[in-house]
Structures are given as structure tokens and as C-alpha cells.
């Protein structure tokens, strides 16, 4: 219980840190903390396998990927800084929408206690046993029987990721700087409008 609340605080604070960090590298660090705390919560929910996966895949692989990209983009001539804010006022409506969203979600979720019927407590295998709920064996059996098809599909997904990234990375044509390009487009649009005769 204390664990949950502690982790909850960590999770929220780290999430806020991720979102508010000045530099992406800090965000990655925040995210790392977030994932670690999550993994701990997963363990407490008797999802040992998922906890491990969370650390390995998320923290180990995905976050590394982020770091690589940060390094890639900030290296060389390009300065890693932000340009002019074109939606400076977005914070207010965004905050409003978020408040509404969160408020009503929590409001509805708050009614949940009384709503869900109690399930049977029978046949609960002991936590920690080899065959127990959330164990690798339990997980694996489900993955290769009931949920075999989703598992197979992940193969395609990963293949898409691989081939897609290869193709994308192989694309060497430079991206024309936005503002310069913008002028050209604006010019074209104006001409088009004139030709159209304003309809």
C-alpha cells in the first residue's frame, strides 16, 4: 500500500518532469525513472514477466533509441533549440480541455467502486509459484494458445518497423527549410487564387 502510493508519487512526478523538462535528455531520464517505478508496480501486481519486460524493452531498448536520436539531431551543425512558438496561447485551452477530460474521467471512475460485481475468489493460485498467475509460464501458455494470433501478428509489426525504418533512413533527399519553402508555397497559392478568379 505504501509502495503503491510511493510509486504513484514517483510516477506522477517523473511524468510531469518528462513533460516539462527543458531538454529531451532530461525527459529521457525522467522517463527512465517513470518506467522503473512502473516496473515496480507491475511486480506488485504479480506481473513479474511484464515488469522485467518493461525494464528491458522500454528502458533498455526504446529509451536508448531516443537517446541515439537526440544525439544524432543535436550533433553537427544543427543547434538543438526551439524556434518561435506559433501557438503561444495553446496552454489555456489545453489546460481547460485537460481539466475537463481528467475531471470527468475521474468523476466517472469514482463511481466504479460500487459498480463492478465481485468475482469469485476461488482457484487463486499462490503468488510466486511456478504456474502462478502472472508467471512466465502462465503468460507463455496464454501467448501460445489463446492469443497466438496476436503474437503472430507482432511479427509483421516488427517487420514493418524494420523495413520502414530502413526505407525511411535511406531517403537522402534533404528537407527544405520550412520557412523558405513556406514562401514558395504561399506564392503558388496566391497565383492559383488569382487564376481561379476567386471562387
Amino acid at each position: 500500500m505504501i509502495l503503491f502510493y510511493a510509486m504513484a508519487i514517483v510516477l506522477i512526478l517523473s511524468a510531469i518532469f518528462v513533460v516539462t523538462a527543458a531538454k529531451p535528455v532530461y525527459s529521457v531520464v525522467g522517463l527512465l525513472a517513470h518506467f522503473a517505478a512502473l516496473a515496480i508496480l507491475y511486480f506488485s501486481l504479480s506481473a513479474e514477466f511484464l515488469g522485467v519486460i518493461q525494464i528491458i524493452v522500454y528502458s533498455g531498448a526504446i529509451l536508448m533509441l531516443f537517446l541515439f536520436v537526440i544525439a544524432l539531431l543535436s550533433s553537427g551543425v544543427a543547434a538543438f533549440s526551439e524556434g518561435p512558438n506559433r501557438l503561444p496561447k495553446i496552454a489555456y485551452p489545453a489546460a481547460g480541455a485537460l481539466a475537463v477530460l481528467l475531471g470527468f474521467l475521474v468523476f466517472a471512475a469514482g463511481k466504479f467502486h460500487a459498480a463492478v460485481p465481485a468475482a469469485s475468489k476461488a482457484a487463486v493460485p499462490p503468488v510466486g509459484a511456478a504456474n502462478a498467475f502472472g508467471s512466465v509460464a502462465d503468460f507463455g501458455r496464454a501467448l501460445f494458445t489463446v492469443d497466438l494470433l496476436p503474437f503472430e501478428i507482432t511479427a509483421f509489426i516488427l517487420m514493418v518497423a524494420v523495413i520502414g525504418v530502413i526505407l525511411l533512413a535511406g531517403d537522402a533527399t534533404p528537407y527544405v527549410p520550412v520557412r523558405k519553402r513556406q514562401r514558395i508555397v504561399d506564392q503558388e497559392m496566391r497565383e492559383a487564387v488569382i487564376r481561379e478568379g476567386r471562387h
Partner: protein
Amino acid sequence: MTHQMGVTGSYPLILAIWLLPLAGAVIAWAFGPQLKRQAGMVGSAAIGLAFLATLASWGAAMQNAGGHLGAQQPLGSWLPGFDFGLLLDPLSLIWALIITGVGFLIHVYSIGYMWTDKAIARFFAYLNFFVFAMLTLVLSDNFAGLLVGWGLVGLASYFLIGFWFFKPTAVAAARKAFVINVVGDVGIMFGIFLIFWKIGSLSFGDVFANVHALDPWLFWTCLFLFIGAAAKSAQLPLHTWLADAMEGPTPVSALIHAATMVTAGVYLVARCAPLWSASHDAQTLVGTVGCLTALAGAILGVAQWDIKRILAYSTMSQIGYMIMGVGVTAYSAGVAHFFTHAFFKACLFLGSGIIIHELHDEQDIRLMGGMQKRTPVAFYAMGASVLAISGFPFFSGFFSKDQVIYGALEHGYTWMWAVGLLTAGITAYYMFRLFFVTFFGTYRGELPPESVGVPRQLHDTQQEPHGSNEHAPSWLMAAPVAILGVFAVGAGWIMMGTGSPWARFFANSFPHETLPAPSVSELVTSIIAVAMFLIGALIAYTRYGSSTALANAPARLKSETEKLPAILVNLYYFNELIGLLFVKPAIAIGQFFSRTIDPHLIDGAVRELVIASRAVGTFGRSLQTGLLRGYALIVVFGAAAFAVYYALEGAAR
């Protein structure tokens, strides 16, 4: 009496009467370019043959088999209730005789009158077509057919008034005549609808046998029918077109706007005698209108200078008499006046046509004078006709007019009797005025028009356009005038006395009433009428005919022109009133509709819809800022809305 119309069975000769003029019209129209002047012969021949056929049908029209009067020829049906047919009974016979007989004379006259006009074939096509239409009107045995004829004569009149269609005044006059006549058509139409609604049939026989089925709409039926009659017969307040109609060639004025078409209203009321006899209100209405028209027309006749317009107002006035006669149910008197009027008025018009011809299309009597020597035929014929119309004893008009005036008294309308007598005096005055100014004195045509009071512009527009100075054989025009003059003198003799041929002729046609003898006898009426005639003629003589008057005629005419009361010069402001009440509002409404409501209100509303849709589109476009966060924000907004709905709905369960 029973109201069965026509002896059952068919009488094909009516078809000949009816269709011969149409054939003439078609031939003249189709072969106009080839026929040229021969079209006049063809047209006259067609009418002449029709006249002969009418004469030959006399017996059939007079036959009376068990209450069925006249001869009948069915024609076919549109749908139940709309059955067509022709009927020749005494009433239609008398009209058909005038139409074809007087029509024939006018046709012959026209050959001479239109001799030099390039479009003479077209003229005869129209003229024959008119006769056909008029015969349709009077020969029809039902209201629908009558209405067809009613419309067609209006059309023919329109064509003939606008015959010189390059004259803007003629075009305008034609349009005016047609539109006012359509007002009348619509009135008749509505009367017909009422009849059809209440009786379910339109044939005269069925309707007159069930007059009481029309209650309580009987008066309204009569009223609507009379609107048609008033428009066609130029009764107040629908009279304004008649004077303008003088823009047409003079024979047209004689045939259509004097002898026949304008008397269609008289025919209608006479034909619907069973309706009028059953409705006292309708009698009062029609009698009053006729009486007032007679007076108003006569007064206007006093103030005119155009020879044809004087005759036009005279026609209006005389038709007022006829309408008054038939209106007060003195049917045979009204018809009698139609009969005599056809002769003397046609004669007057044709005579004036000779003068106009002689003077190369001059119509203003102030610019005439001394025509006695130049056009002797016209002088004598018109002289006889003037006497006839003024009610000189034993000329035709004397008999018929007295019958009408006395008829009003007989049916209890004393004031109409008085007004009728007064009008008789005025008639004598203006007719003799015309006569003296035109024929006596010296010719004033060489004087500058201003010196006799003729405004220059007016003068230029009022001429009839003829081509060259080439003249037709003079007998072509003289003979018809002379014949008509003879009839103008003698046509009334058949009406002399109580058991006259005229009375016997209509013995079975009209509802009979036994009336108490009025306080003033017929003889006294006649004497008063003659006195009125003498007074009127005397005043005219002292003003225009005496040697002192003739001596300084131009100056007199000029000063008189200037002194004419404005209300008479402007024809009681009727044209202005109609313009103000109907024409201008209609145009204003039309412009308001098409310039304001259509583009701004209705299209405006639709355009607002289009603009609104476009605004939605543009709004959507403005949301597409291209900025990723903006898009995300919109998605989140949507999500928030969803969350609100689902949270509330879910929590409510």
C-alpha cells in the same frame, strides 16, 4: 315560357354561316401576297355568302317546335358540362344579319378605303376573322362557346386597332383595348364558373331552365357576366379603350367599334334575359350603368374635336341606351336600338371615312369645314344619319330610342327616363355640332393648325397612314355609305306601332311581363324627345351652323378649344385614375417582386445558406493551421466532449 333552346337535330347551314368568314380569313391570310387587292373581293364574297346563308336560314331560326325556338347544330364536347353547339334563334339571327349584312357593306367599302395600303390582304384576313369570331359569339348555344367568341372578337379588335403596328399610339391603344377586354372576359369566366358550380352545365337551355339553382348567387352571376358586357360595350368604368380604339382604320371603327362588337354586351344581357328577369338587383345595376354611360358619353362627345372620337363617344352613349334598355328588361327595345344604331353609326363612320380619305387622313373637324361640296355623298348620308341618331321623327333612331326611354319608364325607372331624354338633347347637340363644323362654312385645312386651336404635336400623331394618293373607284366607298344611309332613315319603320313586325319577331324570345301603365304615355315621351332634339339641334345651329357663327369660325373654334373645361378634355380623368389605381401599383409590385424579393429575400436566404456552408468550410480550413499541436488540441477537445458525455451518462446508471 320554356327555356329550351333550339329545335333538336342539326341544321348544317349554320355551319356555313359560321365558317364562311373563317374560310375567307384563312384564304386572305394564306394567299395574301398573291391576292393583294383581290383579297378584298374574296373577303367581301365570303361575308356576302354568309349573309345570304343567314337570310336563307330565316325560317329555321323562326321555327318554334313545342317551345324549342330556332335551329341547332351540336359541335362536340370537351368533357361533361362543356358541350359545344351552334344555335340560330331570332336573337342570334338579328345579330347575324347585322354582322354579315352591315359587315358586307363595310367590306366592300374597305376595298376602296384600303386601296393603297400594302397590307390590304392582312386587313381583310383580320376583318373576316372578326366576322367569324363575332358569329361564334352570337351563334354559340352555350356560355363556353360564347366566351370563346368573346375572346376572339377581342383579339380581332386588337389586331385591327393595332393594324398599323408601326404607330406607337396604335400599338398602345390595341394593348389597352385588349387588356380591358380581358378584364371583361375574366368577369364572364367567373360568371361561367358560378353557373358551372351551381348548375353543372353551360348550355343556355340547361342554364335558363334552372335559373333558380343559382340562388343565392344569381345577382353575382349577373354582375360578373355584366363586367364582361361592360368591358366589351365600353360602359363605365371600362369605357376608356373605345376612344383610343379609333387608332384603327375607319372601316374597323365602323364595323367593330360601332355596329357589332361593342354591342356584344347588349347581346349578352339580352341572351341572358331569363337571368336578368329573375334578378331585380341586376336590372337596377345594369340599367343604372347604361343610363350613366349614355349621359357621360354624350357629354364627352361635346368636348371632342376628332371626328372619329366624337363618333366613338357617341357610340358609347348609344350603347348606354341599349344597355339601359336590356338592363331594365325592355329587351326588344334595347335590341331595336342596336339594330338601328348599326346602320346609322356605320354610316356615320363610313361617311367620316370618306372625308378623312378626301383630306388625306385629316381627322380634326376644326381643320375641316365646307365638306358639303367636296364629299356630297358623305354629306347626304351623314346628314340622314345625324337626324336618325338625334331622334328626328320617323328616322330610325327616333323609334328605337323612344322605345328604350319609354321602356325605362315602363319598368319603373323614372329617373332613367329623365336622363335618357336629357341625353337625347345632348346627342342632338353634339351630332349637329359635328355636322355643321364639318360640312358647313369654308375649308380650314389650309390654315395654320394653331389658328383653330389644334396643338401641333397632337395633330401630327393622329393621322392615318396611307401610301400613295392613288384612289380607288369612288363607288366602292360611296355605294355602301348610300345604302347604309337609306337604312338609317328607314330601318325604324318596322318598329312602328304595337303589333309591329319587330314585336312579332321577338314574340317568343324574351320573358313577358305585364306591367302597369306608367303615368306618362309613350306619345308624351316621344313629344318630349322631339323637343329635346329641337333644343339640342338649335343650340348647335346657333353656335356652329348660323351664318354669324360660320363667318368667324376659326377664331370661335380656337377660343372654344381654350375654354373647354379641363375635366372634359381629360375625359373625367379616367385614364389617370386607372393608371394610378391599377397600372402603377402593378408595375411597382412587379418590380418589388423581381428586384427585391427574388434577389434579396429568397435568393438572399438561399445565399445565406450557401455562405453559411462556405463559412463552415472556411472555418474548418482555418482550424487546419498545419500546426501539429493545434490538431492535437482539437482532438483533445473532442475527446473531452466525449468524456463529458460518457461520464455523465455512465454515472447516471
